[in-house]
């Protein structure tokens, strides 16, 4: 029965081909360091899922952001677990993405034909940092408030357009309800959308070109 169902689906979707080409692709003999890209992908999905669950209770308003997080931590069953995973996952994701990048650099995997994969990777790294920056403000506590004050102030030191950048980030001259709301929007919609799109292209290129081999002495 299941076999028939599987054959039926396989004939329309080409599941076997997909499995062969996506998951069973030939790999050169490499190293554990080559698993860090997959680890980054896993962390992205994990942050996405736990983040979606956090939005069930989190409120991006200066009046309630802090209280709603307090409620997540103490009022809801397993709120501490969901937030804990998201909180530590964020730091871990920045770390893992960065080490992944170092490995690609160390093995010189950014060379022809993988220059685009590398450039898109830089975009992915910046977007991941952007997630950390915007997410850090959301609990609306002392630490996050002053960290964002300083962070946006630094962005404001850019010559000529610095003042404009500062106001665009904050939604005005000061940190306010507008800042919290636009950081929230960036954190849950804009940057994740960019990340998802870039990850898609990144993976497409990786499957197209295959994994680069670990360089030998002669290389």
């Amino acid at each position, binding site marked *: 029965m299941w076999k028939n169902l599987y054959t039926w689906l396989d004939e329309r979707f080409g599941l076997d081909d997909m499995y062969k080409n996506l998951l069973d692709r030939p790999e050169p003999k490499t190293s554990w360091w080559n698993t860090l890209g997959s680890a980054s992908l896993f962390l992205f999905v994990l942050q996405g899922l736990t983040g979606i669950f956090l939005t*069930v209770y989190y409120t991006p308003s200066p009046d309630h952001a802090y209280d709603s997080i307090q*409620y997540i931590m103490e*009022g809801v*069953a*397993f*709120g501490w*677990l969901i937030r804990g995973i998201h909180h530590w996952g964020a730091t871990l994701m920045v770390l893992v993405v960065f080490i992944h990048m170092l490995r690609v650099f160390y093995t010189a995997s950014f060379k022809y034909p993988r220059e685009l994969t590398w450039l898109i990777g830089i975009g992915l790294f910046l977007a991941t940092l952007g997630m950390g920056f915007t997410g850090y403000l959301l609990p609306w506590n002392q630490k996050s408030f002053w960290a964002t004050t300083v962070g946006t102030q630094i962005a404001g030191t850019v010559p000529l357009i610095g003042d404009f950048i500062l106001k665009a980030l904050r939604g005005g001259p000061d940190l306010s309800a507008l800042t919290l709301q636009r950081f929230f929007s960036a954190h849950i919609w804009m940057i994740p959308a960019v990340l998802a799109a870039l990850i898609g292209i990144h993976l497409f290129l990786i499957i197209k070109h295959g994994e680069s081999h670990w360089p030998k002495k002669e290389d």
Partner: protein
Amino acid sequence: MSDSHELSRRDFIKVTTGIVGGLIGAIVGLPSVYYLIDPALREGGKEAWIPIGKFEDMQIGTPYPFSFTRVQVNGWERTASSFGGYAIRKTDSPDELVILNSRCTHLGCTVNWDGKADAYICPCHDAKFSMEGEVLDGPPPRALESYGEHRITEDGTIEIFFKEG
């Protein structure tokens, strides 16, 4: 390495990945479901005796309207909910008061006593209820509910027993 060894090693990895993945999924997944439905599992709130008016002010033949507000803490916010009803006096005995809840049994709008029509009228789908709460017309499936217990205090105030839902 022989062929069969190569194969079983691959299968071993597949099965282990499946099991470990499934375990991690369950360890995080089940608490996540609990996290989602937690507010629905909370026990209903406090009980209280609510004063609704003086017995002497309630006239035979005219429903006596009353309303009250209860404040509940929902998550990180206090929410005020309004409740209301009508006390219908029939005799000189406070025990025989009928105290109706003005929440329509159709879809929950608040009904109002209309003296001319001699009925409670629901503004939402034009239901009509008799003075004692029976359905006269419209979609409601059953009569208006009444508040459970009531009592009279020493100074003649009627109080109803109320449990937050």
